[in-house]
């Protein structure tokens, strides 16, 4: 990784002073500083691929929804040809928002200020009182359309970037794509959103959520201790030796681009369900006994068409269940044990949209498979809402921690305190692991989060 200092802050600090590559420490100041935040808007949110939603949110021609890339409002629109476009929600005439609606359907977006009109693909259509040519004669119509982002659909997820000639989404995901395919591309009909995303405000810097999403498994034991104190993971052995800790064993995948996945061993669940030692069972038997979350035994058929044998092996053994995608995404594909001994899945994706150095918008999409039977869909959605997002009994404890960290980072002393990532894997891939990428076995460590910060550092110190 190149050793650049990056821009200097007003007080003379260089970006490179904020990250100690040897000690794996990051200055807390990064979590509250306005200048750093502004640079991030340009060098991170202005440069890389960002997740904006799922195409099932805009199924019909003309459907559109308002979303944000960093602090910029954008329109995600499906044009008359059915193609998805992402364009800046700013009128090229005088900067009014083109739409003030959260979503809708139209083939012509008309600005309410002076009436300039644009097609559902963002192209300029015209301005009122045509004979007066009020858009002027200095620029051709082709120059007057909405600013368009580069768009890629992956597993139905809508991604966009302002970096028109930069790396492809595939290059951006790199080795980790092999794993994300198991989540987003496993079924033939594909995923769909259960509804629009929950959206709420957390008074915290977006990175408090981002760095945690890069597979911080360790906090579960303490911050989510209540899971070990009551309910389905509870035990008399106390927290540390609890079911919870056992449920956490597996492997972690990390990436030079800051992506991360926690692959958790299904053995104990399979034993519970089948009474058999997983080693006695074939990959298919395991997948049928404990299908990927959101899928039924029947739906498992799909997997044999969509996945490679190596992927199937991992899905039946240690599938990715939670993790992050750089910079501000967390995914959850959870196998949740029910009182009746069965397992019900929860599928969710969140983005943490920056709203200033000490504010983020928590956006929570809940997913189901298009093929999931209706009553199971209902169960999944209700379970997801109860555990994740706005009223999530698990995630509210996370999102309530971030504001405290952000406050800590404001103090003249606290800002010079550091975030530490010094628990280092010494294991390597599980024996016989067929997947690519940086993989380590055993109890969670800090590597995945450290790789997240290293990529942050790389982007923040990159030449313009």
């Amino acid at each position: 990784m190149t050793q650049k200092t990056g821009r200097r802050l007003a007080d003379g600090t260089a970006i490179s002073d904020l990250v100690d590559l040897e000690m794996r420490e990051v200055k807390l100041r990064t979590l509250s500083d306005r200048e750093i935040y502004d640079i991030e808007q340009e060098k991170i949110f202005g440069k890389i691929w960002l997740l904006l939603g799922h195409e099932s949110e805009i199924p019909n021609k003309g459907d559109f929804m308002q979303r944000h890339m960093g602090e910029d409002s954008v329109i995600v629109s499906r044009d008359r040809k059915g193609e998805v476009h992402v364009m800046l929600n700013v009128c090229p005439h005088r900067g009014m928002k083109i739409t003030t609606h959260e979503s809708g359907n139209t083939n012509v977006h008309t600005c309410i200020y002076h009436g300039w009109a644009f097609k559902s693909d963002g192209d300029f259509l015209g301005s009122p009182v045509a004979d007066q040519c009020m858009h002027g004669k200095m620029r051709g119509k082709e120059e007057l359309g909405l600013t368009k982002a580069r768009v890629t659909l992956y597993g139905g997820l809508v991604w966009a970037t302002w970096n028109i000639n930069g790396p492809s989404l595939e290059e951006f995901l790199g080795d980790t794509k092999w794993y994300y395919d198991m989540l987003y591309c496993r079924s033939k009909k594909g995923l769909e959103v259960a509804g629009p995303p929950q959206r709420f405000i957390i008074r915290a810097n977006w990175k408090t959520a981002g760095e945690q999403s890069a597979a911080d498994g360790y906090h579960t034991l303490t911050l989510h201790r209540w899971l070990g104190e009551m309910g389905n993971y509870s035990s008399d052995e106390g927290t540390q030796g609890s079911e919870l800790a056992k449920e956490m064993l597996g492997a972690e995948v990390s990436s030079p681009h800051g992506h991360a996945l926690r692959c958790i061993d299904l053995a104990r669940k399979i034993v519970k369900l089948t009474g058999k030692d997983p080693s006695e069972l074939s990959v298919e038997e395991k997948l049928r006994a404990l299908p990927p979350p959101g899928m039924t035994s029947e739906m498992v058929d799909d997997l044999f068409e969509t996945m490679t044998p190596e992927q199937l092996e991992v899905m039946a053994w240690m599938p990715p269940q939670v993790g992050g995608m750089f910079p501000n995404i967390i995914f959850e594909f959870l196998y949740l044990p029910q009182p009746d001994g069965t397992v019900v899945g929860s599928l969710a994706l969140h983005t943490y949209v920056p709203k200033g150095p000490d504010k983020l918008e928590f956006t929570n999409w809940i997913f189901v498979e298009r093929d999931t039977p209706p009553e199971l869909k209902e169960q999944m959605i209700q379970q997801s809402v109860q555990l994740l997002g706005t009223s999530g009994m698990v995630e509210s404890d996370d999102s309530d921690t971030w504001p405290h960290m952000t406050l800590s980072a404001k103090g003249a002393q606290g800002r010079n305190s550091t975030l530490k990532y010094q628990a280092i894997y010494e294991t390597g891939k599980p024996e016989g692991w067929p997947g690519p990428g940086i993989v380590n076995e055993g109890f969670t460590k800090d590597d995945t989060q450290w790789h997240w910060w290293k990529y942050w550092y790389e982007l923040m110190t990159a030449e313009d």
Partner: protein
Amino acid sequence: MSETTFSVYQGLGEPVAIGAEVYNQILQHYYTEALLLDNMKLQEWGSMLAEDLVYTVPMRHTLDLASQSKTVIRTVMHMDDNYRSIMGRIMRLCGRSAWAENPPSRIRRFVSNVQVFNTDKSDEFSVINYAMVSRNRFDDDFFDLIPCERHDKLRKVDNGFKLFEREVIIDQALLGTPNLQIFL
């Protein structure tokens, strides 16, 4: 009175006049509910819930005037609970480690605009009421506000009423309070 013919009363039964005995009892019920919740007496509040409870907080969307009917989103909601899950929440919140509400927020529920309606069951009543909920945490020098319109169903029992349905219509598309680990 005529307002029963207004569109906002569609589907509701005969109104119970303000001042009628059952109206006053229901008003008292709401004041008791607020006092219990505001003082973190969650289990006692739980005793006022019916086992067939359906408790939801839909999302809101900002849409064109012509689409007002679509601004209440009930596919994915902010809260989507039933008796079992609410009791689970209470157990968690009364435990040692529900950090999102431990230390608890200081909350106040100002109940007003209470309107009661008969239903086809003589012991069940529909209630539309407003709650202005103020919430303060830690050293915040401001309050999160959660003004809302509650559509409730109450069932008369020997010693009072039990809530068996609540839908809370909130007034934000982007919720301004950091979580709903509280009851509205």
